[in-house]
């Protein structure tokens, strides 16, 4: 647990910097681990792609799978998406409720800062870290693709990554809300796993499939079925609904935290 020292500069801006620094200190190990996880997943998928596609296409010679379809279905619509959701969820954990359990909440609460600012600074850092994680594949996929003799457009990687990051903020905000509600170190992650798992299985049901947040994250309804490139604009309606849901969850977290007695 890191305690921000702010005794020399009472200005609000300095406090905010200190809070951001504190949130970064507390989450940076998780961030770098998650970054390594994302890099491993993307590198693995691209490194096996040539061999995998050759085998697949020899088995299905009449319907060869293009490299772009492999990248979208294997990464943006599956493995990378799952990895990112888990990483974003873990990055959102922590905060005052958890500090209450470890006994350091009173030090943080003694600072002349509203609880809302405490939560928002943590949320800002988690959002920035999650967006960085989402944008890493946009850089990594075209680079590694060219290194393995394939091409993947930068713009496609960037748009899919943006869609994943913006829509996926819902999972980060669920994590922030659970962190405000539950204090056990493993309680919030376990409840989160249940929620994410239920969303995953629920989204497979055809009755609710069109409302699937996972499809908004991968822009599944805006891709070309054969190449699996984005063929139109991003799913803005879905992204707007997800952003609204994220803001609602964040507001709920603030309300819960403000009413909580530490």
């Amino acid at each position, binding site marked *: *647990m890191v305690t921000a020292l702010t005794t020399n500069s009472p200005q609000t801006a300095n406090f905010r910097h200190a809070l951001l620094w504190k949130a970064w200190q507390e989450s940076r190990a*998780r961030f770098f681990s998650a970054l390594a996880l994302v890099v*491993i997943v993307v590198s693995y998928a691209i490194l096996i792609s040539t061999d995998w596609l050759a085998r697949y296409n020899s088995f299905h010679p009449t319907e060869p799978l293009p490299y772009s379809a492999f990248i979208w279905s294997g990464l943006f619509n599956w493995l990378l998406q799952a*990895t990112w959701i888990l990483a974003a969820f*873990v990055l959102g954990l*922590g905060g005052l409720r958890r500090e209450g359990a*470890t006994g350091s909440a009173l030090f943080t609460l003694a600072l002349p800062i509203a609880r809302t600012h405490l939560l928002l600074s943590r949320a800002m850092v988690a959002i920035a870290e999650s967006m960085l994680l989402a944008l890493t594949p946009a850089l990594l996929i075209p680079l590694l693709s060219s290194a393995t003799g394939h091409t993947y457009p930068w713009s496609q990687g960037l748009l899919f990554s943006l869609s994943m990051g913006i829509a996926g903020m819902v999972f980060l905000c669920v994590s922030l809300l659970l962190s405000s509600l539950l204090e056990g170190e493993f309680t919030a992650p376990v409840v989160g796993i*249940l929620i994410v798992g239920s969303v995953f299985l629920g989204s497979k049901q055809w009755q609710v499939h069109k409302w699937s947040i996972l499809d908004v994250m991968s822009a599944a309804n805006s891709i070309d079925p054969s190449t699996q490139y984005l063929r139109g604009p991003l799913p803005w309606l879905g992204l707007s609904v997800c952003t609204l849901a994220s803001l609602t969850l964040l507001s709920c977290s603030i309300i819960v935290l403000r009413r909580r007695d530490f």
Partner: protein
Amino acid sequence: MKMLLLKAWTETRVRFFSSLLAAVVVCLYHVTQHAWLVTMWTHTLANDPKALTHFPWMPLGISSYNWYLWHYLFDNYLQQIWVLFAVLFAFGGLAREKLNGTAPFSLGLPISRKRWLLSRLLIAFIESIALAVFAIAFTAIASIAIHQTFSVTGLILHTTLMVATGIFFIAFGDLCSSLFPGEYLAIILTLLIFGTPYLIVQTYEQHMRVLGRGDWLRNIDLAHIMAGPWQLTWTTLPWLGMAIMWTMTALLLIAAIKHGDRVDY
């Protein structure tokens, strides 16, 4: 000893009850999806002449409910959920107590660190067994409710194999929990070190088996060792894989005990 077990149970019971809920969600989903999937597969086979080439397992999926249960539960989702919770049950202990500042109280008791560790692992193991038993009992009841017949022996054998070999994950989770004491760090590092290779190799090797091909990666496909072949008998049990996993479990436990003895709280 009873008090140590009670303490370990109190610390992990929320995780345990959550795992039961997760098992219900996973098992209920796949049992209720059976009729719909069989209809879809039958329709696909009748209308698409290439379907049998692309999906050679489809006739088996249509005709055998035992294969369906094995494929969706023991070879995929139930196993993954079980592994995840087995790791989570093993998390905790003195390293986490140090973080909360309660480690000196526990260490003040006249009990060796080894005994602390073993009592916690015993509870984690019992909870893992209870989770597996609950999941198959629930699956059996749900299957009867949808008028499906299944092999009880097959369910018991697959569950026994999953738990017997999956003990490795309890030892692994415990070691990770004591090595990475930061807040939530153990969860993400465990995923990084083991979760990713476990899931990637599992998926890759499943695809290779559909293609009828094999490579060296099948030797480290722990998920397939835990699932075994779908018609499991004494002769088809993966004895070599089981022996390797038990050896690795023993090594991890020794490492956890040695590390626990050397840590300065």
